[in-house]
C-alpha cells in the first residue's frame, strides 16, 4: 500500500477525501505530502509503499497522519517508539500543540521522561489497576515510584 493510500486509510472522513464514495486522489496525495513535509518523513515520494519505510519514519508518518487531522480525541500508544531524538521531540511538540488547541490527548508510554514532558495529568497502570490521575506538576519522582509500586500516592503519609 502506498503512502497516499495509507493516508486515505484513516483520513477519508475527516479530511473529506471522498465525495459520494468517489475518491479524491488529488486531495489524498496532498494530505500525504503534507504529512511527509510536516513530520519530516524520509521517503523518495508518496507513491512508495509504506512497508519500504524504516520503522521510525513509518512511526512519524502514522502519528502525523492522525495529528494533522486535528481530532478532538486522540489516544496514542508509544508515539515515539523507535524514532530518533529530533523527530521524537517534534512528535511530542505536535501532541502538545494538539492538546493546546483543545483536543483530549491520551498518551500511553513506557518512557517516563516523555510522559513528564507532555502530560498535564498522569496515571499509572499497575497489575491491571489504573491509579487516580494526578497533576503532573505536583508529582515528584518518589510519588511516581510509589504509584508504580501499586500505592496510591494520595495515601502516602507525608
Amino acid at each position, binding site marked *: *500500500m502506498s503512502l497516499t*493510500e495509507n493516508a*486515505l*486509510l*484513516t483520513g*477519508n472522513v475527516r479530511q473529506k477525501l*471522498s465525495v459520494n*464514495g*468517489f*475518491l479524491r*486522489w488529488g486531495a489524498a496525495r496532498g494530505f500525504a505530502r503534507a504529512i511527509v513535509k510536516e513530520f519530516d518523513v524520509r521517503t523518495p515520494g508518496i507513491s*512508495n*509503499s509504506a*512497508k*519500504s519505510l524504516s520503522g521510525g519514519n513509518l512511526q512519524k508518518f502514522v502519528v502525523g497522519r492522525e495529528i494533522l487531522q486535528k481530532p478532538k480525541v486522540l489516544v496514542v500508544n508509544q508515539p515515539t517508539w523507535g524514532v530518533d531524538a529530533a523527530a521524537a521531540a517534534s512528535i511530542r511538540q505536535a501532541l502538545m500543540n494538539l492538546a493546546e488547541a483543545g483536543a483530549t490527548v491520551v498518551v500511553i508510554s513506557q518512557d517516563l521522561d516523555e510522559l513528564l514532558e507532555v502530560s498535564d495529568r498522569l496515571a499509572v497502570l499497575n497489575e491491571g489497576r489504573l491509579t487516580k490521575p494526578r497533576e503532573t506538576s505536583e508529582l515528584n519522582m518518589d510519588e511516581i515510584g510509589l504509584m508504580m509500586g501499586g500505592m496510591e500516592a494520595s495515601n502516602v503519609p507525608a
Partner: protein
Amino acid sequence: MFQLELRPNSSALWTAVTPVLAVIATMIAGGFLFAALGKDPVEAIRVIFLDPLLQPYTRSQMLVKAAPLILIAIGLSMGFKAGIWNIGAEGQFIMGAISGGAVGLAFYPTQGAWLLPLMATAGALGGFAWAMIPALLKIKYGTNEILVSLMLVYVATNFLGGMVSGPLRNPEGHNFPESRSFQDYASASNPELFSGTGIHYGVLLMFAAVIVAYIIMNRHILGFQINLTGQSPRAARFAGVNPNVLIAVTLGISGALAGMAGLFEVTGPAGKLTTNFPVGYGFTAIIVAFLGRLHPVGIFLAGLVMALTYIGGEGAQFVLRVPAAAISVFQGMLLFFLLAVDVLSNYRIRWVRKEHS
C-alpha cells in the same frame, strides 16, 4: 546458486510483463507437449494462436467466447482482491441461466421488448442468490467459501439436469431433456446484433462491466476497501471496513455477473438449456482473472487470449487431431506458469557465490 530477495516495492514492470512471459512459456511447453504427441509443434502453436485471428468467422467467435469469461472474471476479481475466493462461478452461471431462462419460458409465447431485460434481471438474481449461500454461511458460521461455492457447482449441475427433464422440458421436444429453443422465441433470444462481429447483448454488458469495474476499483471507496482488505484485513477493520459487508458485496457482485453471463449464453450462443450447457466458463474465468492481474483492463485482454485458446484448440482438434484434453492441459499450464513467473514481481533473483567452508 541463486536466491530470491524480497523487493521493497513490487515491480510495476514485472507485474505487466509476467502474463506475457507466462503465455510464451505456455507456448514453448505446449510445443513440447504436441511434439510428444507426434505433432509438429510449430504448426500446432500456429493453429491455436494465429489461425483464429486470420479468419472472419473465428474472429467473431472470439468475442462470443470471451464475453462470458470476462464478465465472470470481472466479478471474481473483486472478491479475489479482497481475499474472498468464489470458486463456484460455474454454479452461479448455471443458476442464472436456469432462473432467467425459466422466466422467459413462463411467458412463452408472449412477445415484447420487455422480456429479455426481465430475464436478464432474473438471471442476475439467480446467480446472486446462489452466491449468497456461501456468503451467508461464511458470515454467520465462518464456513470456508472456497469449499461451499465449489460444492454448489455440482448441486447446480444436478438441478439443471432435473429442470430440463422436468418442469423446463420442451413439451414439443419428443421427451429429450432440453428446454424450448430461445433462438426460436424472438423476444427471449439474444441474437447477434451486428452481422459477422459476434457482438450480442452479453458482449455489450461485458464492455460496460469492464468500465464500471475500472471506476469502482480505482476511483471508489468500495474498491479501496476491497484492496485494503486483501492486503491487510486487520488494518481494514481499523479503518472502519465491515468484513461481513464486503463478503456479501463481492460474492453478490460476482454471482450476479456470472448469472447474467449464463442468461446471455443460454439465450444466445447456446440456444437452449440442456445438460451440456455448462462448458466450464466459470472455472476458466478464474484463470482469466489471474492472467489479467485482477485488473479490469488486464482481464479484458486475458479473456481474449483465453478465448483464442478455446477456438484455436477446437481448430487443433479438427486440423491436427489432437485430443480435446490437450487444450485443457494448455489452459492449466497457462495458470501454472503465470503463478510461477509471478514470483518475479515481488522478488528479485540474485546470484550468490557458494560460500566455501
